[in-house]
């Protein structure tokens, strides 16, 4: 490790590793710091991603990343109705332990230096300018200088805060989650299952993502507001006791997802935020893998060029938020309104939507079908819906 790099990246998840890879490819010297002892562990994720989404950034999809292929989803209503929808494209359940590891290694192959067990605890400033980071590693304190600092530090997003950006997630937008990876003989079939009900997962949903061979990620996320009354893990334990009382729990994790639109500010002089740290998450699904890859590619390219041009000012980095907005950010703004709409649906309205959805033959059913049914259920929200699609 040197004491000076062009770029220091904090966090080695998909966002950090992808930014690092593209910046190094463009010729920048890059150090990537990860606070955990292992990249990709623990997996705080349901591990779902679409084939098309991954291919937008990754040319080759490695078979080792894929635990299962998914082609349809069953929506479960509060009263127990099941509405099947078929995907237009293939979905994957990934093995993120391998996936994240490989993304970091792809960065390393471009010359990125990676260090784990490196807990970043402050920014270095010189003449009021961001000039690197301070971190603790194996009981010692270090300071490393960099022209550009990238905060890919996930839901905590402290790098941005230290730089003066208000990165805190509002309680109602923080989906707080608990998940078990389980084995159960009754977990057959390769379908996604999503449960919508105020009793199972208020202001959120419960998911079953099958990994094949009787294994699945079963978890749920509810808004921070809803969690004030009862913790996510309590909802999950109740669901498991009722549906899979004999399941073996192979792994349990908790975590938070900023189901928000992208932060207004994601670049400053000498600073970029990427991934969950920038709230680059699909607010409806809570999916963050593909957004992290897309943002990381753009951020890495822009960072690499800024280093090459010798100008890391916010103005020089503006291309990143601009291109991100066009690629995904503007969709996330729409999805954010849609999420707020969905979270306001009552159990009766959800039931009505399921009923209407079931009347449409499977081959003609789509998300639009369900949304039309939702409008009938809640005409008072037609105005909000118009805002969603305009």
């Amino acid at each position: 490790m040197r004491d000076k790099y062009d770029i220091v990246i904090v966090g080695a998840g998909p966002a950090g590793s992808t930014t690092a890879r593209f910046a190094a490819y463009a010729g920048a010297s890059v150090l990537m710091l990860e606070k955990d002892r292992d990249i990709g562990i623990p997996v705080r994720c349901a591990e779902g991603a679409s084939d098309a989404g991954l291919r937008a950034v990754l040319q080759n999809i490695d078979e080792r990343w894929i635990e299962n292929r998914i082609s349809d989803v069953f929506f479960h209503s509060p009263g127990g109705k099941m509405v099947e929808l078929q995907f237009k494209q293939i979905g994957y359940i990934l093995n993120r332990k391998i996936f994240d590891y490989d993304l970091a290694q792809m960065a390393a192959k471009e010359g990125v230096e990676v260090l784990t067990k490196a807990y970043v605890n402050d920014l270095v400033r010189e003449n009021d300018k961001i000039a690197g980071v301070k971190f603790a590693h194996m009981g010692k304190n270090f300071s490393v200088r960099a022209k550009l600092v990238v905060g890919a530090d996930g839901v905590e997003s402290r790098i941005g805060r230290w730089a003066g950006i208000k990165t805190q997630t509002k309680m109602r937008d923080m989906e707080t989650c608990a998940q078990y990876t389980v084995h159960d003989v009754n977990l057959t079939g390769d379908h996604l299952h999503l449960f919508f009900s105020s009793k199972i997962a208020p202001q959120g949903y419960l998911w079953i993502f099958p990994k094949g061979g009787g294994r699945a990620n079963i978890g749920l996320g509810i808004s921070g507001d809803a969690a004030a009354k009862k913790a996510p893990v309590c909802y999950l334990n109740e669901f498991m006791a009722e549906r899979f009382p004999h399941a073996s729990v192979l792994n349990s994790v908790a975590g938070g997802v900023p189901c928000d639109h992208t932060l207004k500010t994601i670049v400053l002089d000498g600073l970029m935020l990427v991934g969950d740290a920038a709230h680059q998450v699909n607010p409806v699904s809570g999916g963050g893998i593909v957004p992290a890859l897309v943002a990381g590619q753009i951020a890495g390219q822009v960072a690499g060029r800024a280093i090459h041009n010798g100008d890391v000012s916010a103005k020089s980095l503006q291309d990143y938020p601009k291109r991100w907005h066009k690629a995904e950010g503007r969709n996330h703004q729409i999805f954010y309104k849609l999420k707020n709409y969905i979270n306001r649906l009552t159990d009766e309205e959800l039931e009505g939507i399921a009923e209407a959805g079931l009347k449409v033959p499977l081959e003609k059913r789509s998300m639009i079908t369900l949304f039309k049914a939702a409008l009938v259920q809640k005409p008072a929200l037609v105005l909000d819906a118009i805002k969603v699609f305009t």
Partner: protein
Amino acid sequence: MKQLFFDKIAYDRQVCDFCGTCVGVCPQDAIELTEADFTITERCTLCKNCVRVCPLRALEFIDER
């Protein structure tokens, strides 16, 4: 249980998953979290966001009435 910040908030290391969700909703950036330690600094204004958002209820607000 480790009691923090003038004994108002209790932290249970046995329950905590070190996920950082509490850090993400803290309006004061008052939480320092590593697998080795959890600290709430004097910047805390006792808004209780961290207690309410915790997926596992590893934090508890101590009401002393």
